[in-house]
């Protein structure tokens, strides 16, 4: 595909498109160019199975999430006390439209977007130690430096975790974003209004999306979004992608990712089962169809594992607006009781054929400061203890012992909002029953992926659930970024965190033990030595585990995957996680079709 | 053997309906002859099978079935056509319908289709039977409307049935019936639905057209009084049979059959003041036709042992009338 465009003079030859020393990725086999990958999503620009492959950051981790190695930067120099980080961008690195990606882009992003008072009235959430922000400086076109007032080790981890908002410093092409920015385009407001937005910054924030970049937004990942309708997105290969295989062929091999919009979740499953996607996860509950249909649908099933510390973990909104509920949720006994009430064995046997791990949601056991007792904590199935704890928590049974009464004397009901994840919804039904048996009535409400987040950010949820990553060494150290963080995906204590992070200007003042925890985390990020890093790390995670802010179910579950026959370089055994591994582990850019023309 | 001027000769006609309750003989061995250029009045209580019979003549008796007897029709050229033998859907009968035998129906309100204008529906018939076509059609339609004394004929032609009054609609109906100059006109209670003044107008109109066109009319009515005004000859029908047939004068002067007498007695007369008598009892259920003379249950002077056993046959009387009754059996013998 690119060859013709080169011939037609639309593109410079490959050696001019690649940086001086491109990143060499070892492909299992040298592939053939061409073909299309098929995938599906719930709404245009929404998440899809392969989208982890779309983005590339300054650095990356290995597949075990333990080692950090350069990616789009060929070198990162760190000073003695981890306060100065010098990033050397691969010389000649280009956006997908051929424009150089230089230090200027990064600085522009920092100064005009992150530090812009209109876009972020309260300043950016990252690169902040205490109350001071890091300094960004340009040493030469291909080199920039981030300087922190004190040591800030996680800066490396951050640069390796492109899925964090942080990674977006390679996600905002200055030359393109300027048109939406009032400081650079006086007509920005008009432009926004033409597109139905009130003012420029609203439109700009929409355009900031870097994971599923907007149509024709210059991009550094292997594919960029070339077209988007309400029925499908098309991601074209990035002709300037800075990766080559061991023989020097530019990656990716596959020209196009075609993402069909399929609004109905059930239909998505059906399409996977009938071979409509090139690669997709099988629902365990539907597995019999997948196996029976393999021949007709022309795919094979590989047995991967989901690197989830917990398939699904529940977090209660500790900052709930209703004082009564807030008091209950804040009661550790309540959370412990609900953890004891879950029959993890039953979930495991019915849904995972007994092959998942019945443990609490926490870090990956491979982490250096890991503590095995975290896994067992309150993970036992013990209804009596649960009932006792609930009684103590001030939730007495009603007369007929049907359900428990809240302090206000009303039937105690809580709503868990969720949106469909990799985990089977049946799991929620089990939990609902287990909790109902100890008298806690639960309504499981499915919502849309984004809406769930919006509601939680607004602090309107009782309780929500999400899969817990298998958090490895690198991911665990991402500042304020793991799912245990009060303001990440589970949003269980957003107001406290805001209070701390804005030093009391907004949010709600947390109780002392949480202030301590925040301090502890801050100290951990400033750790001077490896020893200190481990000690504080253990303390931080010990607090999270003992506080049981997230109640885990079962983890490390088997995950069958359907792969279209003829798709090559797909690993047979893989542990896919959504942590720092998530994007890298498939290495989609090395996938290829053995008959590309057969997959137009 | 029919007389030479017979245009329609019905012999032992039987029309039956197969209903869920059982077999119903609406017309049961009916004999009748219609003569050229004459008006035959057919009288009988409602439900006695008059309408079915008339439909049978046009072979639109469905869902009833002709299960006996014969209907011979002698066209303009005098050739005989066996109507009963024809296929009701076939082209022969369709050519006879309206062109030879036309009909005026009981309900002027609903006998025109609501979808099309009067003119369209009349023109349809004329075009169908090659009376007029193309440019000539519209004038022909108007003419036919004028011929029945329709005021503002052109406009009426353009109007829809629901815009006309009952009388007007019946006039239009007659116009349509006559539009193809049929040799026989069957008028099935054409005035029942109309008020008295309109009724007399319509009768006048019919008489006038008959005289003008010299066609034969089979005038069906339950009202002897009306028939008296228009018919040359009257046939009285009871339960699907003719019980008496006579020239109109003879019938009124000396009615023979008890049923006829009863009918006559039920007409109000100005010149004679006697109490009106209603017929005793009502018509038997059609599928429970009494044995013997079907009238005997209601007959004031029935002969026990005969009337309720033997079915009488039609006998010709001296005064040229025919009657079907045991009371006149003897005098025929001696």
């Amino acid at each position, binding site marked *: 595909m690119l060859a013709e465009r080169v011939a037609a003079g639309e593109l410079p030859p490959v050696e001019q498109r690649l940086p001086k020393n491109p990143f060499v990725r070892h492909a299992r086999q040298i592939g053939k160019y061409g073909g299309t990958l098929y995938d599906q999503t719930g709404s245009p620009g929404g998440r899809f199975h392969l989208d982890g492959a779309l983005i590339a950051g300054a650095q990356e981790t290995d597949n075990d999430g333990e080692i950090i190695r350069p990616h789009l930067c060929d070198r990162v120099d760190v000073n003695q006390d981890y306060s100065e980080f010098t990033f050397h961008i691969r010389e000649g690195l280009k956006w997908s439209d051929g424009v150089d990606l230089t230090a200027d882009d990064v600085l522009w992003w920092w100064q005009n977007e992150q530090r812009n008072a209109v876009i972020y009235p309260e300043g950016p959430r990252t690169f902040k130690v205490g109350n001071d922000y890091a300094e960004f400086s340009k040493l030469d076109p291909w080199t920039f430096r981030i300087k922190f007032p004190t040591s800030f080790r996680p800066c490396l981890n951050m640069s390796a975790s492109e899925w964090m908002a942080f990674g977006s410093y390679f996600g905002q092409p200055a030359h393109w974003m300027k048109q939406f920015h009032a400081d650079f385009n006086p007509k920005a407001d008009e432009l926004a209004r033409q597109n139905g937005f009130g003012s420029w910054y609203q439109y700009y924030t*929409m355009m900031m999306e870097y994971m599923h970049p907007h149509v024709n937004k210059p991009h550094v990942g292997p594919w960029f979004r070339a077209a988007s309708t309400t029925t499908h997105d098309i991601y074209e290969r990035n002709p300037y992608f800075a990766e080559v295989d061991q023989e020097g062929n530019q990656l990716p091999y596959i020209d196009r990712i075609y993402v069909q919009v399929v*609004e109905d979740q059930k239909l998505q499953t059906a399409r996977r089962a009938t071979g409509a996607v090139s690669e997709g996860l099988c629902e365990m509950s539907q597995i019999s169809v997948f196996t029976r249909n393999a021949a007709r649908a022309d795919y094979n099933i590989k047995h991967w594992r989901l690197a989830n510390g917990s398939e699904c973990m529940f977090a209660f909104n500790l900052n709930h607006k209703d004082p009564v509920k807030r008091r209950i949720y804040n009661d550790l006994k309540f959370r412990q009781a609900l953890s004891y009430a879950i029959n993890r064995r039953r979930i495991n046997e019915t849904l995972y054929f007994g092959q998942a791990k019945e443990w609490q949601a926490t870090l990956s056991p491979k982490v250096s400061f890991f503590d095995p007792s975290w896994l067992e904590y309150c993970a036992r199935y013990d209804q009596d203890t649960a009932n006792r704890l609930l009684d103590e928590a001030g939730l007495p049974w009603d007369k007929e012992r049907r359900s428990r009464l809240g302090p206000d004397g009303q039937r105690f009901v809580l709503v868990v909002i969720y949106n469909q994840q990799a985990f089977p919804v049946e799991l929620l039904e089990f939990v609902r029953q287990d909790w109902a048996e100890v008298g806690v009535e639960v309504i499981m409400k499915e919502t849309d992926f984004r809406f769930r987040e919006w509601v939680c950010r607004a602090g309107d949820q009782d309780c929500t659930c999400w899969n817990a990553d298998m958090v490895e060494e690198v991911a665990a150290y991402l500042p304020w970024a793991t799912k245990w963080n009060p303001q990440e995906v589970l949003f269980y204590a957003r107001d406290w965190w805001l209070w701390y992070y804005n030093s009391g200007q907004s949010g709600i003042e947390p109780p002392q033990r949480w202030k301590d925890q925040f301090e502890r985390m801050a100290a951990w990020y400033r750790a001077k030595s490896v020893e200190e890093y481990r000690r504080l790390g253990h303390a931080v995670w010990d607090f999270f585990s003992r506080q049981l802010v997230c109640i885990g179910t079962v983890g490390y579950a088997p995950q069958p995957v359907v792969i279209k026959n003829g798709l090559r370089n797909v690993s047979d055994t893989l542990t896919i996680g959504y942590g720092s591994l998530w994007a890298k582990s498939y290495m989609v850019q090395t996938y290829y079709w053995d008959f590309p023309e057969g997959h137009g | 053997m029919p007389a030479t001027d017979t245009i329609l000769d019905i012999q032992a006609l039987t029309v039956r309906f197969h209903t869920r309750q059982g077999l119903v003989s609406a017309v049961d061995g009916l004999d009748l002859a219609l003569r050229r250029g004459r008006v035959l009045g057919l009288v009988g209580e409602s439900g006695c099978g008059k309408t079915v019979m008339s439909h049978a003549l046009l072979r639109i008796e469905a869902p009833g079935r002709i299960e006996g007897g014969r209907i011979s029709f002698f066209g303009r050229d005098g050739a005989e056509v066996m109507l009963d033998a024809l296929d009701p859907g076939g082209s022969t009968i369709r050519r006879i319908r309206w062109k030879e035998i036309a009909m005026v129906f009981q309900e002027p309100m609903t006998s025109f289709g609501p979808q099309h204008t009067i003119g369209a529906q009349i023109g349809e018939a004329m075009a169908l039977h090659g009376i007029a076509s193309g440019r000539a059609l519209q004038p022909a339609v108007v003419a036919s409307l004028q011929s029945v004394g329709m005021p503002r004929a052109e406009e009426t032609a353009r109007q829809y049935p629901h815009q006309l009054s009952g009388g007007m609609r019946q006039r239009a109906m007659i116009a349509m019936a006559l539009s193809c100059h049929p040799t026989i006109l069957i008028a099935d209670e054409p005035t029942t639905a109309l008020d008295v003044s309109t009724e007399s107008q319509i009768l006048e109109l019919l008489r006038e057209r008959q005289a003008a066109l010299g066609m034969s009319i089979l005038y069906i009515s339950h009202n002897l009084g009306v028939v008296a005004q228009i018919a040359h000859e009257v046939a009285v029908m009871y339960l699907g049979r003719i019980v008496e047939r006579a020239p109109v004068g003879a019938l009124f002067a000396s009615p023979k059959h008890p049923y006829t007498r009863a009918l006559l007695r039920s007409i109000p007369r100005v010149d004679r003041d006697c109490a009106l008598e209603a017929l005793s009892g009502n018509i038997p259920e059609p599928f429970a036709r009494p044995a013997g003379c079907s009238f005997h249950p209601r007959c004031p002077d029935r002969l026990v042992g005969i009337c309720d056993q033997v079915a009488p046959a039609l006998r010709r009387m001296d005064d040229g009338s025919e009657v079907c009754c045991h009371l006149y059996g003897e005098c025929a013998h001696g």
Partner: protein
Amino acid sequence: MARNGQSGALLLRYVLKRLLWAAVVLVLVSFFAFLVIQLPPGDFLDSYVEQLSRSGMGVDSATLVSLRHAYGLDRPMVVQYWEWVTRFMHGDMGVSLLYVRRVNDIILERLPWTLLITTTSMLLMYAISIPVGIYAARHQYSLGDFAASLVGFVGMATPGFLLALVMMWLAYLAFGMSLGGLQSPQFMQQAWSWAKLKDLLWHLPVPLFVVSIAGMANLIRTMRATLLDELGKPYVTTARAKGLKESVLIRRYPVRAALNPIISSGGWLLAELFSGETVAGIVLGLPTIGPVMYRALLAEDMYLAASCVMVMSILTVIGFLVSDIVLAFTDPRIRLS
């Protein structure tokens, strides 16, 4: 059709009256749509603000207030409604946060497919149910009649989504037809070509069947019933006595009469079709408006949802209008009274 000036004038008056009524109805519809926006808990702004601060720090109360003002959410309902309606009338349906684009563009993309599905299935319905209905009425209690009413009843009683699901699966088993959408993916990226058209036609039957079966069942029943009592009317006898051929007669008189209720049901039918289209659209993943609305409702992207409802309703109102006017043409009694 209007045969003279007087009836023409009447017709005009009738049409104008209908137009006026339609306008009134549309106003009511807009009320409903606005209600749809307002109904759900957790209001639109919360979502929007959060969207704004996605990677940021969340918005302080001051900004919140200013935003509330910017979106007129601090003003009384009436004002909000008025602003929404005026914007709608100027063809600005607001922006969808779910699709991150203007609602207009979304609707415009989906509308053609929606119309394709609905109109074709409408034609299909008429084309099939009218002759079948006539047949059933003329051969009452015949085998064909029985079969027709059986199909009719099943079509009426089977939930659309179920039908869709099963048909989809069967189509896949039988023809290996790809699930979801009206075209095979490889064609969707290409420009229109014969192959693409063929592919489209290949995918159409299942959705059309699912969408139209219920309405078709209904039409057959109505057609049969009305034709049956029309056939008993005296004017049919008259026409027969006139010597008309049976086929001609049926076509010219009772069928013409029996068509009226069918025609007058046109608008209602359209409403039903949109219902069917929504269900089938979601289950079969059609590129129609229905699924978008479904998605929008789940995401409580209310401006989008409301616009979908609004558009469908407007189309239905137009449908009612058209069917009424057509009826006025075909049925003189309506036109002239």
